[in-house]
Structures are given as structure tokens and as C-alpha cells.
């Protein structure tokens, strides 16, 4: 999914500004939450809670970041996600572009995958399902 709704983007930007203490001009569609915006793992609790409140949609644990796959002995071997694991991630994360991660699927790099645009696509998918 390459397009995103501007209204959704604006609301997500506000959530990220509040949760991460970043300036508005630091946020762009391609910005990664961890690498560019400095999110730490605990920030995701804050972000998910505020996304739920802002968009009035439930976001179950593991839906935005499927950490059950990333910590599974079945799908992670020697620190890398297996081809089956990549397939699982694709199914669970249709909103994210996994092409770069797939080239070197080291689990530690996964955290830096999610972009602001991915968040928009994720929320749009949730809103469409809820409609």
C-alpha cells in the first residue's frame, strides 16, 4: 500500500509528537519510528494506547508488531527470521514493506522497520475493517 490518508497521517503525527516528544518537522512518511524518531520499546505502549483513543479502534497486542513471531523458536533461527517466518510476517503485517528486511532478516533490525507511512496504512486497514 503506497498511499495514505492525509487526515489519518495528521492524527498519527500528533500522537507521535505527544508520545515521542519530537517536533512536527521531524515527522515524514518515510521516518522510522525507532531509528529516526527515537522510539523505545516502552513508547509503543503509549503510542498504541493513544492510537486506540484517537481512532476508536482496538489494537490487540502483537497486531502492530507481531513479537510472538519474532521470539518464536520455530520462525527465528540463529538470530534471523526464517523464510516461513517472513511469510507469517507478511500475512500479519500487510501494511509494512518487508522487502529490505527480507534481504537480511536479522531480528534485531526488525525494530527499525516500521515507518510513519506503515502506521497510516495499519490504521487505515483497521478503520476499513471497523466500518
Amino acid at each position, binding site marked *: 500500500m503506497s498511499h495514505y490518508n492525509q487526515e489519518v497521517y495528521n492524527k498519527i503525527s500528533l500522537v507521535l509528537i*505527544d*508520545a515521542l516528544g519530537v517536533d512536527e518537522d521531524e515527522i515524514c512518511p518515510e521516518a522510522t519510528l525507532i531509528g529516526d524518531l527515537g522510539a523505545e520499546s*516502552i*513508547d509503543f*505502549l*503509549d503510542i498504541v*494506547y493513544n492510537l*486506540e483513543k484517537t481512532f476508536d479502534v482496538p489494537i490487540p*497486542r502483537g497486531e502492530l508488531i507481531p513479537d510472538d513471531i519474532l521470539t518464536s523458536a520455530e520462525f527465528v533461527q540463529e538470530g534471523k527470521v526464517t523464510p516461513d517466518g517472513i511469510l507469517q510476517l507478511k500475512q500479519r503485517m500487510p501494511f509494512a514493506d518487508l522487502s529490505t528486511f527480507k534481504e537480511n532478516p536479522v531480528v534485531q533490525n526488525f525494530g527499525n522497520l516500521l515507518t510513519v507511512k506503515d502506521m497510516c496504512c495499519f490504521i487505515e486497514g483497521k478503520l476499513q475493517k471497523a466500518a
Partner: protein
Amino acid sequence: MRWFWIDRFVEFTGGQRAVAVKNITLSEPHVSDYWPGTDYLPTSLMIEGFAQTGGILVAEAGGFRHRVVLAKISEVRISANPQAGQTVRYTTVLEQFNTDGAFVTGTADVEGECIGQVKLVFAHLNDRFDAELFLPGQLLQMLQQWRFFDVAQQPDGTPSAVPDALLADPLEVKTAQPAV
């Protein structure tokens, strides 16, 4: 010495809301010495008060089985600090609770005037962290000192009983062992 930043609970509805008070006195060095001549509770210690009130709210929602830590102060607005001789009242509301942690909002007031607001994120420590925060008996003792069980009730009005998780391992008093 314990890290007490509230004196007692005055309202507690499990899984929903907790209210605690702290009396500010000149005999506390952090009040009389922090900024000589002003005699107020520093903002950082007000946040500790919010964290203890909200932290117990989160711990109770999980049956006192999780190790709850303050993970993030998402927002804090303090318009005034309570002075010596005043009582600050912390009201916290559990906005969300899940297996990872919880989100709590809070207000502080003195004599009915709101002087502070916070949004706090609490985390449940997972297995990667093997540190013990409290012996269950210690936490139970703190709850008793805070008069928690005098006011704690469930949403249906049933008084809250001492949770099993805190009875599982009674307070151990560690004594020095003689050298052999």
C-alpha cells in the same frame, strides 16, 4: 527507611480509580531544604506520589502478580507545589491495562484546587529482568501502612481482601549469619 510518597489511601476502586493523600510537613528535609525559604514539595516528589498511587492501582488490577514499574511520564503539568502544612490529594484513573503494562491518568489537588495533571505509562517487567522489586510481605506491609484495606473495594462494592499473591511468601527478616 522506605520510599513513601503518599501517607494513605482514602479511596480505592479495583481496576478503576485510586485516591491517596500526603501531608506536607516542615520536618521533611526535602520540603524545608530543597529551596530554603519556600518550603514546598518538589515537583519530582509529586510525581513519585502520582506513581505510587497509580502504581498500586495497576498492581491491584493484575492481582499483585506482576512486577510493576513506572516506565514513562508521558505528560506532566504542575501549576503549583503543595506547601508545608497542606495536604495534597492524588487521584489516579486506570485508563488501560494489558499484559505489557498500563496507562494511568492523574490529577493532584490541594483544598479542592487542581495543581497538577499527569499521564503515566507503567510496565510489567518480563522474564528478561530477574530483579525482585519487593518481597510479597514487604508490599503487604506497605499496603497496610497506607490503610489500603480500610478503603479498597471492588467495583461492585465488595471490600478487597488481602490478595493471595501477597500471602504466598511471608515477610522474611534477613539476619546476618555468623562467619564460619
